[in-house]
């Protein structure tokens, strides 16, 4: 299939600029993002929206890929699932990645479906060695089909299980290492899960092998009356997550950063302000210590 734009050559991939800050490109932002991308270093799109009879015309993706690298992000890989992997879906993703010269593809460490039932949600399991090894085997198979690096995103969750024998970060590391793939690290998800389950997010960050991080996600979330935090992507990034981002940058920066917004869409200018805020936070770290190693 012919490339849609002047992205990376067919069959190859380019690595994202480690200082780049990107945004999730949703149809609500096509007009502004595709006419004046300005400070935006890269885009990320939900791959499923552009596969088969997906709801968004493919032509917009071609325009985006002509302007900036477009990373593909998935929501239905089902790494923790027990149904067979959907190989035709992965091949479609691979073809799309090739066509737009995507630098990478990522999806979540979760399960999404069972037999004919699709949850359209990102669901957790207990954290055990056996389940981690099962996911690693599936992730290795995914990477074997993709022409670009595959990154696994850590999940935000609202339930933890008595049967878990590993911490979340031990589980995540075992899957990534076992599969020999990459991380797509979501800082907001670490914070949401830490608040919901009562673990220390700093310990999570310290477990990360940063050279495996393709990029990091930042997003907003909501808080229910009972205190449970829900990963809704419908609000600006909260101060606590910005603080965790600052700590992550000190520990492992530079890494590309992407701002996600999936509901309650603000004007484009407000999203760009968050991009600039990420840059400002990093600049302050570098001013404090040119080596970026302050405590």
């Amino acid at each position: 299939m012919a490339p849609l734009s002047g992205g990376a050559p067919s069959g190859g991939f380019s690595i994202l600029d480690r200082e780049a800050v990107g945004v999730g490109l949703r149809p609500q932002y096509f007009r502004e993002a595709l006419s004046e991308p300005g400070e935006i270093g890269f885009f990320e799109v939900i791959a499923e929206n552009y596969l088969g009879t997906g709801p968004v015309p493919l032509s917009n993706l071609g325009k985006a890929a002509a302007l900036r690298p477009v990373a593909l992000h998935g929501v239905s890989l089902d790494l923790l699932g027990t149904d067979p992997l959907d190989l035709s879906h992965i091949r479609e993703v691979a073809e799309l990645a090739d066509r737009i010269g995507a630098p990478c593809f990522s999806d979540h460490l979760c399960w999404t479906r069972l037999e004919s039932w699709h949850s359209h949600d990102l669901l957790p399991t207990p954290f055990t060695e056996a389940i981690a090894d099962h996911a690693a085997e599936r992730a290795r198979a995914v990477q074997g089909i993709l022409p670009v690096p595959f990154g696994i995103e850590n999940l935000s969750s609202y339930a933890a299980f008595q049967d878990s024998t590993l911490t979340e970060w031990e589980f995540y590391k075992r899957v990534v290492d076992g599969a020999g793939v990459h991380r797509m690290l979501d800082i907001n998800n670490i914070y949401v899960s830490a608040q919901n389950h009562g673990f220390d997010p700093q310990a999570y960050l310290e477990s990360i092998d940063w050279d495996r991080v393709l990029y990091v996600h930042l997003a907003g979330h909501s808080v229910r009356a009972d205190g449970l935090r829900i990963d809704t992507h419908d609000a600006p990034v909260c101060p606590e997550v910005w603080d965790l981002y600052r700590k992550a940058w000190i520990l492992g920066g530079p890494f590309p950063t992407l701002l996600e917004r999936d509901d309650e869409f603000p004007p484009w200018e407000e999203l760009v302000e968050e991009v600039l805020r990420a840059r400002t936070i990093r600049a302050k770290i570098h001013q404090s210590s040119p080596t970026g190693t302050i405590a």
Partner: protein
Amino acid sequence: MTSLHRFQRSWAASTAAPLRFVGQGRAEIPSKDYEPSLLGSIVEARGVGGIDRLGAYRMQYWFRLLTLLQKDNPLLGHLLGWEAFNPLAARYLQENPPGRDPSRLSDGFPDWLQARGSRSTWIEAARVDHAWEEVFRAEEGSRPDAASLAEVAHGRAELVLQPSFRMLRLGRDWISLRFALLEGQEVTLGPPPVRPRHWALSRTGSTMRADPLEPGMADLLGEMARGRSWLDALEAVGERRPRLSRQVAGWFAAGQRSGIWAIKTAP
């Protein structure tokens, strides 16, 4: 992974169990729906127990699906009001669990309404809503220009219907209502017209448009929608309509204005 599969079965059954609608658009989660082994496997932390934690997933599942159906069906929702729409949509979802592509969730909704003997106005509203979504997400084919029309004349290309075109036969003015809802206007559905009429629903870029069709052109488009080529469709319509040649130029021009035509290059 037998134990993981068993865990996921239990989770899926708990999540997809229906909500209880209690009026005024509110829904509750009956706590007895959860399997004791699943409930007992959840860690209670920070004062939030298993029922509320599983409930978060269950509420999200239903909220997400109902929101998708609401977005896909603004006319039907306007007609019924969301308080009546939501339980109806939930029953449809129970009988038609979501497949892989959430954007196709509403595909079977009009037929489901018809099969259960719903009122004709509900079915027609759902059909317009569905056609609107289909038009909106369809790719646009190449539009005819002078050069491509010359290719048509020489048989090297064919005039076909745009993928982003649907024809509707409507007994009420759903089109005005749908555009008014898009603009956020407060509107009510008028009385049914004396005779149903055909409409062309099409899209250019992100702009939707709807044009009333004269009966002859609706016949022609109907033939083409059934798979006949432009020339075969003209012939079929011509058998029923004298003085066809005078009308064809007008139909062609109307189709150009409405964005109905596309060009398909002969292989």
